[in-house]
């Protein structure tokens, strides 16, 4: 039998509400972690997954308390242990790799000190041995020149480097169990793939058990042997990773997997209705009842138990899981997007646009000299047709949001023209744009918590554009607001609510409704789904698609998520360091030949499928500024030719599938190497 290293038994963790009720956020969790295995715990925000991981270290956050159950490690219950004993286990037997390493490294202590501290606490090495070990650890997590890194402060490292330091620090005590709490969330796509690869290597190399907590099934699929799916504080499904990903027998997991956009499939993913209930809302019955397609009366009255199904080697918390087994041949039926609306009718045109964040010096401003020869965004030429969805894709620092802001007039362009509706030139000064041009272009932001005024009701929020552009008031205004709410599938009783009383998905719907209130021609979407949970994201994407078809709106859709872009866009523009690398119809951009950067990006995408492994083509170095001359991607390009790439700006060339690639390597050459 495999050795069990941690046993969680009937664990319930909760908090006391203001009215004094005990509300549980973890309910009756029982599971075992075996030696050498990697367990993925997946769930949406608020599912209790991080609380569970922390409890496995005997740590319960302030405000929470253990209601029942135990976490047994080495035959003693961590939750009942004295702090002094826990100090000998934490970092030595069980180590944690936190979500946001940038905030989890103490800002006033050097990297070297923080690793040395862990070594001092958990090993018997002397000073010089510890110094060597520190370098060795930094080397192991593949940080360049460990000696200099050790002398740095955390804020001097990039996000990926900070995360690697956190991994190195966790390995210092040579732990038997590693807990990883969303270790790659917030990192760029390529960095994420690299960190995951490192973690996989470490798991094999050291043989430690790992518990990998994430909301991202793509990441979970790459690392886990076994998967635990959590929903509303309960385990709803637990079993071997492959079986769960290939044949999910719980309706939630089934829906979740279907709602994730995939690179391999064009079109929009299926959406799941509603959102996860708040802790304490479900008194009896199955917590997934409201959103379940297979629900019956008994599901509302009785809570299903976690039941072990031996033929599947899986535990499932559902009365009707057998129905899902029967459904296994059901192929992914994606909603076909209606592409008829796209007329070859230009609505927005960007010519030679460049944008600079550098402030002009006073003297240069007077002399009207252009000082910044290397602006943040440069040489952007894009035509956007009426009714199409153009996606701007790239990692952080690619300038995609910058371009969006300058189209909206929020950032001044340094050079170039933005033309709207063929002949109307949009001023780069927001104040000089006329009302009808302002109305024609609307924005939807990433985070609805920030884009909706917390002190306004939904009614007041939606009234603003209606009053401003159409001068509506009274009954007319109210009627319009109700119509708008219906368009985004919210009832009229939402009018009197404040944003804090809405769920994330509902808030984003209000933001969508506000944009559509202006009856715009173009809507600029800035990472509109990245703050949302996966199951909610699909619903918002579907809504955007439906509205676009109804109103013939044009979208410019900025995202770092290539799979989401694949799902919603007609055309894709790939950006690196503020320069265009490739642009073309989305189905073609996702095929080879591609620009080497597109190739790197596509290779790093994590699919929720254990059979599709990411391909790591280039290093994940972070470049602070675009190069002065030559190709923008020269610093990281795996196919770099030499001086030509460093000195000459590459030409545009049209691939045989219609996408334009800006590269010195010929299309034929790229095709040969990439396929």
């Amino acid at each position: 039998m495999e050795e069990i290293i941690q046993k969680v038994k009937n664990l319930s963790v909760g908090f006391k509400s203001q009215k004094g009720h005990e509300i549980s956020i973890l309910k009756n969790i029982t599971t075992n972690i075996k030696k050498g295995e990697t367990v993925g715990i997946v769930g949406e925000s608020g599912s209790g997954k991080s609380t569970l991981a922390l409890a496995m270290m005997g740590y319960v956050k302030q405000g929470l308390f253990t209601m029942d159950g135990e976490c047994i490690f080495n035959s003693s219950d961590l939750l009942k242990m004295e702090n002094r004993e826990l100090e000998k286990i934490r970092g030595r037997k069980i180590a944690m790799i936190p979500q946001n390493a940038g905030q989890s490294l103490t800002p006033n202590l050097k990297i070297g000190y923080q690793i040395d501290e862990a070594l001092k606490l958990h090993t018997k090495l002397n000073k010089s041995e510890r110094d060597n070990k520190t370098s060795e650890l930094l080397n192991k997590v593949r940080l360049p020149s460990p000696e200099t890194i050790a002398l740095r402060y955390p804020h001097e490292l990039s996000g990926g480097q900070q995360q690697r330091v956190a991994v190195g620090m966790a390995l210092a005590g040579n732990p038997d169990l590693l807990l990883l709490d969303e270790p790659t969330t917030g990192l760029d796509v390529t960095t994420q793939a690299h960190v995951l690869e490192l973690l996989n290597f470490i798991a094999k190399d050291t043989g430690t058990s790992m518990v990998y907590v994430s909301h991202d099934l793509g990441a979970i699929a790459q690392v886990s042997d076994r998967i635990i799916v959590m929903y509303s504080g309960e385990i709803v499904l637990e079993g071997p990773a492959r079986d769960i990903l290939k044949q999910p027998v719980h309706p939630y997991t089934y829906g979740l997997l279907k709602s994730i956009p995939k690179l391999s499939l064009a079109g929009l993913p299926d959406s799941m209705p509603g959102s996860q209930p708040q802790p304490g809302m479900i008194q009896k019955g199955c917590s997934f009842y409201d959103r379940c397609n297979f629900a019956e009366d008994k599901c509302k009255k009785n809570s299903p138990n976690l039941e072990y199904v031996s033929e599947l080697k899986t535990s499932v918390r559902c009365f009707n899981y057998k129905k899902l087994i029967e459904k296994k041949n059901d192929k992914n039926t994606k909603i076909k997007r209606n592409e008829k609306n796209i007329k070859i009718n230009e609505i927005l045109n960007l010519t030679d646009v460049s944008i600079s964040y550098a402030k002009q010096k006073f003297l240069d401003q007077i002399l009207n000299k252009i000082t910044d020869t290397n602006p943040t965004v440069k040489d952007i030429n894009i035509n956007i047709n009426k009714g199409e969805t153009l996606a701007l894709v790239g990692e952080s620092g690619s300038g995609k949001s910058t371009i969006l802001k300058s189209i909206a007039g929020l950032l001044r362009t340094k050079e170039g023209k933005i033309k709207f509706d063929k002949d109307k030139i949009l001023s780069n000064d927001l104040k000089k744009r006329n009302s009808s041009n302002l109305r024609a272009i609307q924005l939807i932001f990433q985070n609805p918590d920030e884009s909706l005024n917390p002190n306004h009701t939904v009614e007041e929020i939606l009234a603003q554009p209606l009053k401003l552009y159409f001068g509506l008031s009274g009954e007319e205004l109210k009627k319009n607001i109700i119509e708008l709410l219906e368009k985004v599938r919210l009832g009229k009783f939402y009018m009197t609510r404040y944003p804090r009383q809405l769920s994330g998905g509902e808030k984003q719907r209000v933001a969508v409704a506000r944009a559509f209130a202006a009856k715009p021609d173009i809507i600029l979407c800035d990472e509109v789904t990245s703050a949302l949970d996966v199951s909610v994201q699909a619903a918002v994407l579907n809504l955007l698609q439906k509205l676009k078809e109804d109103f013939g709106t044009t979208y410019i859709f900025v995202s770092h998520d290539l799979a989401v872009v694949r799902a919603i866009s007609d055309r894709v523009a790939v950006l690196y360091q503020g320069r265009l690398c490739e642009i073309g119809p989305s189905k073609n951009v996702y095929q080879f030949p591609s620009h080497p950067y597109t190739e790197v990006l596509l290779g790093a995408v994590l699919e929720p499928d254990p059979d599709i492994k990411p391909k790591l083509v280039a290093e994940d170095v972070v470049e602070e500024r675009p190069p002065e001359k030559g190709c923008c991607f020269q610093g990281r390009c795996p196919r770099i030719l030499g001086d030509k790439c460093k000195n000459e700006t590459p030409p545009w060339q049209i691939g045989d599938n219609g996408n334009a690639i800006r590269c010195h390597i010929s299309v034929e050459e790229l095709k040969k190497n990439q396929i």
Partner: protein
Amino acid sequence: MEINKISEFKKKSIFFKISEVLVTMASKPSGFIGLSILVFHILLAFVSPYLAPYDFKAIDPSLMLQAPSSEYWFGTDSLGRDVFTRTIMGGRTALTITFFGSLIALLWGGLLGIFCGLVGGKIDDVVMRIVDAFLSIPWILAMLLIVSLLGTSTEVLIPALGFFYGKGIVRVARAATHDVIAKDFIISARARGHSNLSIIWNEIIPNVRDAILVEGAMRWSWMLLGFSSLSFLGFGVSPPTPDWGLMISNARGLMSFAYWAVIAPIVGLSSLIIGINLTADAFAKALGIDRSTKAPV
């Protein structure tokens, strides 16, 4: 969230919001004590002229420095005036002047702060430099100078106090505006093309209001402290008007044998300041603002 209870989400009227905040404040013991003391003092200020058993300015040398008795509950002072009468009336001037002073401070400080936070750049720099310079003159020196040159009338004291205690509010309002202005909902309103005035009124003020009000409440207690210090130094209310600061100052020299004449106004003033302070604290907590990180400048 339960969506059937529509009534629960009716748009709340301003009175409802105020009563909601008051209930939250009173639900904690410290907030309850603070509120009760404050309410007690305010009521007392209104009714004390009718409650007073004696004339506050009636001097009677034959009754000098009488110890507390059933006739003179808190004894009499060095001029033979009833200390009880003067104590219950001693907060009226201070409360009125500091209340209106705080309102003035709130108004000019809040508006200037929002303005600076909004425009930023050079104008903001210059204004903040000047505010900093004012902050670096000790308030007591500045107040004493103004009062000694312009006199101690209410028309001088209220604006002068309001001016000097508004400086701090400028900083708070400016910082709060800075925080809000970077938020997407402001950017969204700008991108839609709303006018600056409409952005200030609809988007900024509702979001900085709480921070400014809390700061104002806090200023009130400090202003009371400052005002009574002025009175104590002889630059506040002119005699024979009863005022705690002045009463303490007058009775101080004789306290070795008539401590009651000092103790009564001390209790009056201390309780009022503590009451306002606890209330401001509870107010801040009810609105979700941490006020303990701020310096008392």
